[in-house]
C-alpha cells in the first residue's frame, strides 16, 4: 500500500461527490492509500492566474506546504483544483520574491519553494499504478463501449506548467479508456472549451460551446463522454441539448474495478 496526500477540494464535497467517492473506492483496490491533510481549504479558485498578487497564491501554497510537511506526493482529482495547485507550484518555484511574500503572509518557518510533487489522479494511474497494471485489475471491462475522453482546457494548459500531456494531441485519457476495456473515440473537440464560467453570465454562449463539444462527440460515434472536471460535467449536461451521458472518469474506473457499489459519500 503506497500512501499519498489527497486533496479533494470543495466541489467534491458538494456538487461533485461522485468524482470523489469513486476515486477513493478505486484507489483502495489499486493499492493506493489516500490521506487528506488536516483542515484543507479552498484551492484558491480561479484567482491564482493573477501573476503578481500574492494573496491569490496563499490558499494553494497552504495545501502544498501541508503536503511538504507530510513528506508525500499530492494527488488531486478535480481538474480545476489540479490546475490551480500545479500552476501555483510552478510559478512559486520560479519566483523568489513571490516565495518570500507568501512565506511572510502565511508565517511559514521556511519558504515554500515548490518541493511537492503533484499528480493528477489520471497521472497517478499512468505513472504510479501503470495502465497495464490497472488493466490487470479490471473485473468488469467496459467492452465495446465507445467512450469520448473530454479533456477540456484545465488539465492540459498551460502545457509548460501542467506538463501532463501534449496539449494538442493528448493520450492519457484514451490510454485510460483502453485500460478499463473501452474503445476511445477519436474526436477533435476534446480539448476545446466547454463554456466554463460563462454559464453564470450568458447561457446562450455557454450552450453554444457545450453543444459544439457534445455534437462532435455524438457525431464521431461516442456512447458516452468522460471528464475529470465538475464544471465541464455541469456545462455539458445542463447547457447542451445532447442526450449523450457524461460521467466522471472515476465512476467508470470504479465500475471496471467492481467497486462501484462499495463507494460511499464522505
Amino acid at each position, binding site marked *: 500500500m503506497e500512501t499519498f496526500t489527497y486533496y479533494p477540494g470543495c466541489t467534491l464535497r458538494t456538487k461533485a461527490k461522485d468524482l470523489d467517492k469513486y476515486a477513493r473506492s478505486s484507489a483502495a483496490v489499486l493499492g493506493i492509500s489516500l490521506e487528506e491533510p488536516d483542515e484543507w481549504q479552498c484551492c484558491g479558485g480561479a484567482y491564482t492566474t493573477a501573476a503578481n498578487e500574492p494573496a491569490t497564491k496563499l490558499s494553494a501554497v497552504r495545501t502544498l506546504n501541508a503536503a511538504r510537511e507530510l513528506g508525500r506526493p499530492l494527488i488531486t482529482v478535480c481538474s480545476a483544483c489540479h490546475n490551480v495547485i500545479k500552476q501555483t507550484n510552478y510559478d512559486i518555484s520560479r519566483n523568489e520574491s513571490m516565495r518570500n511574500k507568501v512565506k511572510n503572509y502565511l508565517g511559514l518557518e521556511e519558504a515554500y519553494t515548490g518541493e511537492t510533487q503533484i499528480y493528477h489522479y489520471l497521472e497517478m494511474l499512468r505513472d504510479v499504478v501503470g495502465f497495464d497494471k490497472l488493466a490487470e485489475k479490471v473485473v468488469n471491462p467496459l467492452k465495446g463501449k465507445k467512450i469520448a475522453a473530454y479533456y477540456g482546457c484545465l488539465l492540459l494548459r498551460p502545457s509548460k506548467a501542467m506538463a501532463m500531456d*501534449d496539449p494538442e494531441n493528448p493520450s492519457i485519457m484514451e490510454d485510460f479508456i483502453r485500460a478499463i476495456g473501452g474503445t476511445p473515440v477519436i474526436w*477533435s473537440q476534446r480539448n476545446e472549451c466547454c463554456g466554463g464560467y460563462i454559464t453564470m453570465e450568458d447561457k446562450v454562449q455557454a450552450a453554444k460551446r457545450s453543444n459544439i463539444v457534445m455534437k462532435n462527440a455524438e457525431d464521431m460515434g461516442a456512447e458516452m463522454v468522460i471528464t475529470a472536471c465538475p464544471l465541464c460535467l455541469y456545462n455539458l449536461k445542463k447547457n447542451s441539448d445532447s442526450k449523450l451521458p457524461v460521467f466522471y472518469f472515476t465512476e467508470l474506473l470504479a465500475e471496471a474495478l467492481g467497486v462501484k457499489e462499495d463507494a460511499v459519500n464522505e
Partner: protein
Amino acid sequence: MQRIGVFVCHCGTNIAATVDVKAVAEALSHEPGVVISQDYQYMCSESGQNLIKDAIKEHSLTGVVVCSCSPRMHENTFRKAAAAAGLNPYLVEIANIREQCSWIHKDIATATEKAVILGRAAVAKVHLNAPLTAGESPVVKRALVIGGGIAGIQTALDIAEAGFDVDIVEKEPTIGGKMAQIDKTFPTLDCAACILTPKMVECSQNERIHIHSFSEITDVKGFVGNFTVTIKKKARFVDETKCTGCGLCTEKCPMKKVPNEFNMGLDNRTAVYIPFAQAVPKVATIDPNYCLMLKTGKCGVCSKVCSVGAIDYKQTDKLVEEKYGAIVVATGFNPIKIDKYEEFAYSQSPDVVTSLELERLMNAAGPNGGTLLRPSDKTHPHTIVFVQCVGSRCDDEKGKPYCSKICCMYTAKHAMLIREKYPDTDVYVFYIDVRTPGKNFDEFYRRAVEQYGVHYIKGMVGKVTPRSDGKLEVQASDLLANEQLHIDADMVVLAAAIEPDKSARPLATMLTTQMDTNDFFTEAHPKLRPVESATAGIFLSGACQGPKDIPETVAQASAAAAKAIGLLCKNSITCNPCVAHSDELMCNGCSSCEKVCPYGAITYIDKEFRMPDRTTRIRRVASVNPAVCQGCGACTVACPSGAMDLNGFSNSQIMAEVDAICK
C-alpha cells in the same frame, strides 16, 4: 634591442568616435621598444599601408603593432604590407580596438583606457614574436559533394565541367532529393521531373562524377586540400554492378505492404524496390526491415527471378576511404513533423495533408496517377483550405523561429494549379503575411488571387474538426474583416515549416564546421562569404545553409562549385605556420596531447637521447605533423610538462600579454 612601430587606426569614426586615437598613440609611444607611434584615418587604405611600409624601412622596425579592427578583417593586409617592406609577416600583431573595444563601449574615457591596454598587450607580445615561414601542402584534385539533391547535383556537374573528379555521397538509394518529389515548380509551373531528371542522368553519364548512393559519411580527417573521408556504403543486398534496373524483382516481391517514402507513405511499395522510374542509379535496393528472406530466411523470390544474379542477401555495409581536396555540404532540408499541431487534426483525418503530400497527390507518378482525390474516400474535393506557417515564425519551442521562405510560393502554386484543373473547387489560403519577393514571384501570387480567384484570408486557422460525414469543419479568424469563419472543407493542406536534415549535425561535428541554433550550417560571412564555411575547404550548397527555393539553391550550388574549383585549381596551398611543436627534452610521452588533438596531428616516436652520464636512452616523445596541425592550441593546454608550444602563440607570448593587461 627591439624596434617596434605602433599604428593606430581611426577606421573613420568607427574607432575614433569612441576611442581617443591620438591619446592611444601617445600612450603606446612610451612602451618599451616602441620607436614610432602614429595614428591614421584608414590604416587599411593604400596610403595607410604605405605609412607602415615606410616606417619599417625608415626606422628599421623589428616588429609592428596595428591597433585596428579584428584580425579576421585585415591581419592579412598588414602582414602583406610588412612582407613587402622586407619584414617577416609574422612579426605583425593586431590589437583589436574596434569589435572588442570601440563598438561595444559608449564612454570615451573607458574605451580609450581599454584600447591602450589592448595595444600594450600586443606590444608585449610582439617583443617575443619570432619570424615564421609558411610551408606548402599539395591539393588533392578531387571534390566530395555530400547530398545528391538538386544542390549537390548542380555543384557536382559544375565541378566536373571544370575538369575535376567529384564524388556524390547520397544517403538514399537514388539521387534527386526533394525536387524529385515535387510536381511543378514556381513561378513558371514547369514540371520538376522534366528539368531535374536530365541533370540526374548527366550525373550518371559524366565520367568525372562518381555516385555513392545509399551511402553515408562516417569519418572526416585532414584539412583543406587534403581531406581523408570514410564513406559507409550501406548494404542494399543488390550488386550495383550487376543490377540492370529491369524491375522484375520489384514486381514479384510478395511483401507489398511497405509504406512508400517517395510518395510520402500515401501508397505502398515492395520490400525490394526502386524509389521511382527515373532513379539514378537505377538499381534495386532491399529494405531489410520488411524483406521476408532477410527477416525469416524464407522467400528468396527476387533472387530466383533476377536473370543477372544481382541479389546478394549476404551483403554487408562496406567502408571506403577516399581523399579529397574540397568538400561541399548539400544535405538539404525536410518538412518538420507536425504532431505538435494537432489542432489541425493531421493524425485524425487522412484528408488533412502536408504540402509535400499534396505534391505527390497531384503528381502523375503519385498514388492517384495525378488526379487530385481525397485520400480517405478517393472523391474529388470541392473545398480546400490551405494553412500557411505551420511551425514557421513560431515564438515558442513547438516550431521554428524563422520563416521557411518557400511556403508562400508553393501554396500559391498549389492553389493556382487546383483552380486551373478543377475550376469547381473553392480554394482558401490562410496566411499571416504573404511573402513573395523574387523575380516574377509577386506577379505569380497576384495571378493566383486575381486571375484564379483563390480566396486569400489574413488570419490563422484555430481548429479543424473532422466530422463523421467526411467534412472537415475549419474554424478560423479573418483578421481584416474581424470575424470568425467556419468553412466545411473537403481537404486541409498544411504548409509545414522546413528544417535541416537530421544528418547535418553529426556531419558538422565531423567537418568541424559551425551551425546556428536551428542546425543550419553557418557561412563564413553572412554577406561576403555566403557559400564558404568558416572551416577552410568546406563549402555550403543549398538549403543546408538556410531555407531556399530551387532557383536560389541552384545559384548557391554553382557558387559553391566555383569556390571549390578555385581551390582545386591550385597545385598547393600555403600552410599556416602557427602550428604546435613539442620540446622533446621536456616531453615525457604521456599521450595527453594526442588524446585532445581533434585533427589527429600528433603521433609518438621512439627517439634516441644522450643522457647527462654520456649513455644513450630511447624515449617515447610526441611528434606533430605540421601539415595536419591546425594550430588550435588544445595540446599546449593539455600538456602537463609544458613541452607543447604553439608557434606565434607560445605560452610565454600569451603570459606576456596577460602581464601587460594586468599591469
